[in-house]
């Protein structure tokens, strides 16, 4: 499916879009990964997996903030994205997911099992789901060309 975020306006707009499309998957993968390592830690109590979760969440947040900034620029500059309900849904899911993971990072600082069970893992499930849905909505954002034609 053609995508509003791939359609071209100016060169600058195209650059932001490629940056966003490059960054967006990184936090998604990190947070889903952290859910997996949480599950492994909770079932094994082997601390290395807890460390994996902590680093994955930290990296996810770092790249999530960068991606979130690019998305903000995109929201401001792209009328087509703002016009589509699914565009708002994509942004909302992404930002809420990122906020959940910030809490999750703090939760994961506890020294041991209570970093993950029960609250940490719950937050990892919620965060990973929101990110996954955000990715799904991104695929469904209508192509810009279609949008433009429809509204003209």
């Amino acid at each position, binding site marked *: 499916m053609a995508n509003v975020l791939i359609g071209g306006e100016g060169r600058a707009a195209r650059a932001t879009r490629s940056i966003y499309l490059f960054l967006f998957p990184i936090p998604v993968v990190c947070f889903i990964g952290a859910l997996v390592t949480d599950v492994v830690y909770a079932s094994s*109590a082997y601390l290395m997996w807890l*460390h994996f979760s902590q680093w994955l969440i930290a990296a996810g947040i770092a790249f999530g903030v960068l991606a979130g900034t690019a998305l903000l620029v995109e929201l401001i500059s792209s009328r087509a994205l703002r016009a589509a309900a699914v565009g708002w849904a994509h942004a909302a899911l992404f930002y809420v997911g990122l906020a959940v993971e910030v809490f999750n990072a*703090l939760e994961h600082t*506890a*020294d*041991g*099992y*209570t970093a993950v069970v029960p609250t940490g893992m719950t937050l990892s499930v919620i965060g990973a789901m929101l990110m996954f849905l955000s990715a799904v909505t991104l695929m469904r954002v209508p192509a810009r060309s279609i949008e433009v034609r429809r509204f003209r």
Partner: protein
Amino acid sequence: MKTPITVAAASIAFAACAGSLAFDRTTQLGPNPQLPDPEHSLLPQMNVPKVTPWANGEKPTVPEGFRIEAAATGLSNPRNVYPLPNGDLLIVESKKEAKEPVERPKRPVMAFIEAKAHGGSGGGPGNRILLLRAGEAGKPERPTVLIDQLNSPFGVVMVKDALYVADTDAILRFPYKVGDAKVGGPATKVIDLPAGPINHHWTKSLTASADGSKLYVGVGSNSNAGERGMDAERERAAIWEVDLATRTYRVFASGLRNPNGLTFYPGSHTLWAVVNERDELGPDLVPDYMTSVKEGAFYGWPYSYWGQHEDPRVRPQRGDLVKSAIPPDYGLSSHVAPLGLAFYSGSSFPQRFQGGAFIGEHGSWNRPELNGYRVVFVPFQDGRPAGKPVDFVTGFIKDGKARGRPVGVAVEAGGALVVADDVGNTVWRIRATASTKQASR
């Protein structure tokens, strides 16, 4: 709260803030401390006081009948004091050198906060032992360097004609005669101690048995509550007994998170220690304590605290070990960080101090309301604590800023109490004023 850096963000803290504010911490002083339920907060509740140096002439406060003066100033992280029988005083300047590995994102944050609590104090050389000669009364001498280039030393003990020094990674023996200005030769290593690559609790406290045949050394844990795995804790969180004749060791007692202030009760074969308990279970858990150390005993860490209260963070759980854990003797309340212990064996303080314990409380940063930052006195009767601790040296905190933090304490041959202040970079000496002496005679 005006000046301290309050990282607490109590508003985000999950639960129990109301509960902890209502908690009376004096209920944790003595043999049966009240233990609230463990708390779990999103951000650790902290209050790291800023460091501000003692202004000229400023001193800690002591009770009426005593006076305090600086025995040595301008030091570099003085952590421990060891008086010699002739009135000379050894001062151990020490700081942690090696950085801990970064296994998780929390580590650099914690390292930053811990450094802040020390105010980057003591930029000088450090990691050496100074000798402060007795000198004439009222005329402080400048300390000279007795032993240099040590590796984060802490414990010191004289046995016959030798000075034993507990570096963070080994016990060293120096030939030395009381009264000499220099050691009589280079160090020989008695035994290695657990150190790198993590070496979280690095101060190795040291004392000797009455007959001088054995040394006892405190080896603190590598983590707060076992969160670096139990492989990192092998023979740590323990007190070792080192046989000097054979240069062998065995674990004398275990489950002691960070044991310091190792001292035999005067005239007995009972070893005592003060122990720093774990953090991040709430502002009123777990009480730090003073305890007589029973041979072969297990005191719980990391699986349980104060006897058999299980720590929910530690996995896999070890019910078998928890069942064998015994409670310590005497609570000092939570996060006071006791690092020094000395029994009063002098004669110049009033009678009620005889045989009692002075405890140097380095002070908290892991609770919203500061606790510790003082030297307390615990009266003893028949070799057992008898009564609540009372403040003895206070005034280290002023307007929420730390001017000093007491660490090692000791009683000099002349009966004065000396206190190492590692943030104030001073050694303080407390004497009874003449009138008190006369009154008690």
